């Protein structure tokens, strides 16, 4: 009788594709619960009861999966069960029944099989549409173009597969800040392998990327300033199709955000030169992972400048670098000078808000110059600098005027003090005269 009911249920609720026919019963049951779980997913994740967790929550890892862990998993919240990936019968309380080959139990999948296993659902557009129509379904295809995917195909099981980045049994969506693939956590996830020198021994690539990135301005933007649009590993390397951009395409990657710098670079003599040398465009000066906040010292002929790595005294590049550096520091110094003067005036109680406004424009010019320098043509940089110098000059004059007003006040004070002293002197004489008069008059 139960089989008749279940067959009717199947007919009523057959989902589009349940990839394990013997498990369709289980899936039908869990599909019944789907609305309930969807509704309560945010509030109290009510996952389908499965006999697997009842036993396995008591085990230590690696076979242990706790109730809490599984309840946090997005698959559990959407109504799938252990059997969805591992096969078997999630309703059968006995181990023999639950993990029977007859019920389709597959046990722990081999690492090399995992991408295909996940892709059984995640690459099926029609299936995924039922759950989240905006989720991509090309992850497997991308993965197969990646270094990880290519090596896995050759049999290397040390490389990352789905569960290494997304974790397993407690997978959270990427928007969840606790997820291992949330932008805030991506670098840590990649570093689990890529910073492990012992693990990476056979691969002949460096393991200092995470350390470098952690010191970079991109890391600072995301973690310290909270800008989630800042780049992390996957931004430049891709996530499923992860591979380092080729030397020729580095500029393309950086220029998705740094548009102006790339455009200017394209007009500069460096473009052809770097291409000929086979060095990446941006990373030659800025490095790839340890991209620190650039200062004016990065350009020029000083100790910290990168220009002297290629240019030597006497060549035109050396001279250009020197000119650009001098120009930038000249404007910076002029702006600082006028700023200090305005500070002094303000502290003396003078009103300088108009000058402050213009000061901001002056700093704009300096910011623009620091972008224009990517053309590596001193004349172009000169234009921005001149505009800034003019403004710095005006604001400096405003500061001088404010201080002159302050001095005028002090002169006014001086005059008033003099008149007061005169009155005091007069009063002194008056008192003396009155008192001597009193004494003579006999008071």
């Amino acid at each position, binding site marked *: 009788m139960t089989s008749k009911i279940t067959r009717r249920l199947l007919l009523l609720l057959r989902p589009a594709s349940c990839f394990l026919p013997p498990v369709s019963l289980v899936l039908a049951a869990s599909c019944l619960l789907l609305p309930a779980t969807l509704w309560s997913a945010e509030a109290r994740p009510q996952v389908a009861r499965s006999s697997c967790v009842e036993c396995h929550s008591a085990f230590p890892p690696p076979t242990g999966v706790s109730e809490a862990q599984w309840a946090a998993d997005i698959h559990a919240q959407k109504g799938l069960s252990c059997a969805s990936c591992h096969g078997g019968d999630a309703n059968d309380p006995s181990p023999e029944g639950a993990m029977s080959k007859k019920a389709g139990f597959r046990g722990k999948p081999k690492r090399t099989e995992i991408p295909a296993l996940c892709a059984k659902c995640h690459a099926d557009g029609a299936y995924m549409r039922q759950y989240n129509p905006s989720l991509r379904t090309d992850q497997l295809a991308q993965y197969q173009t990646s270094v990880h995917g290519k090596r896995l195909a050759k049999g290397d099981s040390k490389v990352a597969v789905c569960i290494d980045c997304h974790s397993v049994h407690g997978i959270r969506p990427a928007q969840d800040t606790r997820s291992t693939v949330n932008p805030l956590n991506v670098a840590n996830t990649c570093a689990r392998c890529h910073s492990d020198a012992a693990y990476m021994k056979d691969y002949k690539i460096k393991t200092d990327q995470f350390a470098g990135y952690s010191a970079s301005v991109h890391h600072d933007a995301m973690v310290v300033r909270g800008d989630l649009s800042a780049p992390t590993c996957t931004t430049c390397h891709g996530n499923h199709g992860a591979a380092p951009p080729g030397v020729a395409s580095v500029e393309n990657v950086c220029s998705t955000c740094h548009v102006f710098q790339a455009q200017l670079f394209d007009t500069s003599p460096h473009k052809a030169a770097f291409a000929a040398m086979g060095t990446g465009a941006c990373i030659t000066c800025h490095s790839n992972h340890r991209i620190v906040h650039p200062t004016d010292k990065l350009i020029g002929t000083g100790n910290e400048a990168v220009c002297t790595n290629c240019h030597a005294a006497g060549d035109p590049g050396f001279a250009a670098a020197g000119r650009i550096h001098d120009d930038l520091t000249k404007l910076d110094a002029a702006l600082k000078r006028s700023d200090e003067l305005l500070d002094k005036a303000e502290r003396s109680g*003078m009103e300088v808000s108009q000058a402050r406004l213009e000061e901001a424009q002056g700093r704009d010019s300096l910011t623009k110059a620091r972008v224009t320098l990517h053309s590596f043509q001193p004349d172009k940089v000169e234009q921005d600098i001149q505009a800034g110098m003019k403004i710095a000059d005006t604001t400096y004059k405003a500061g001088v005027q404010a201080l002159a007003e302050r001095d005028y006040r002090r002169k*006014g*004070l001086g005059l*008033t003090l003099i008149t*007061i002293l005169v009155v005091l002197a007069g*009063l002194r004489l*008056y008192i003396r005269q*009155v008192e001597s008069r009193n004494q003579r008059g006999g*008071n």
Partner: protein
Amino acid sequence: MASLPEAAPPTSTHSNRLVRWLDERFGWEELLAPLRHKTVPVHKLSYWYFLGGITLFLFVIQVLTGILLLLYYRASANEAFESVQYIMTQVQFGWLVRSIHSWSANLMIFTAFAHMFSVLFLRAYTKPRELTWLSGMVLLFLVLGFGFSGYLLPWNTLAFFATKVGTEITGQVPVIGKPLLIFLRGGEEVTGATLTRFFGFHVALLPGITTLLIAVHILLIQRLGMSVPPSQEAAWKAKPPAQREMPFFPNFFAHELMAWYIALGVLGALAALYPWELGSKADPFVAAPAGIKPEWYFLFMFQTLKLIPAKVGPIDGELIGILGFGVAGLIWVLLPFLGGDRYGRRQVFIRGLGVFALAYMLAMTVYGYVAK
């Protein structure tokens, strides 16, 4: 009813015709005559007599500069800060008027305290001058009220939080504390309503009461004359001096005028060389800046409260502090009635109390400044 014969004012003999004309209509010669004979004792400690007059002079300065500020100040939370900024930067000599007002306020509180302590140590509060002392103590509290209410008016961050803390402490007084807090704040929290209320206190209520009390205070002084400190009386007995007193008009007044002009010079210099800061506009939603302290004249009380442990037995430490200051204030107001005879033994005890109070206030103020 038979009508009284019209009493014409006596004919004035003043040299100035205008003055004579006015006197025939006001009849003030009769009233002012006693003033011409008013004398001021001359002795080693006569200079202390200036302090009262300087305080009065500074009060007049406050009223005049305050009226000028009223022409441009706007008492709403949205505009108060900007209006003071406007006065400081756009109005011709606005910086001068505002800085003089702020500096003179501080100077006045200082001279008021100095005046009170000098009266205490020179024993000028004993019979028959009890009411002068009483009115003077109330005036001192009013002056502190002026300082507290005026401080909020620029609506900057420091003032906002100082007011918050100050009214909070007031709220701790038992029984009447909470209603008093709501009365002062114009609500539960410090808001624009508080500003409007403080403005009303500062420019109407307090000046009205203060003017009345000053009139009473001066009237009493004129009627009772200046007191001579017991130590000088003894010195006079031992060695009678050539001159025991000088006429108020013109001698003493000329001296006072010198003191007032010096005060004017000091005020002008302070205003021009150390203009009063404006700070940043108050934002009720920002956390209080670290290390917030009240102005120096409240610092000794604030520092005392900070030093008392949070709980003393079952009672709140802050409450003990507030009650302590309340009791001290009450004793201070009632000193003339507690001291007994002017030359009695209890006066020595009161002098000791005075020295302790002064030393304590100075020490706590300095401590409050240097403490983190």
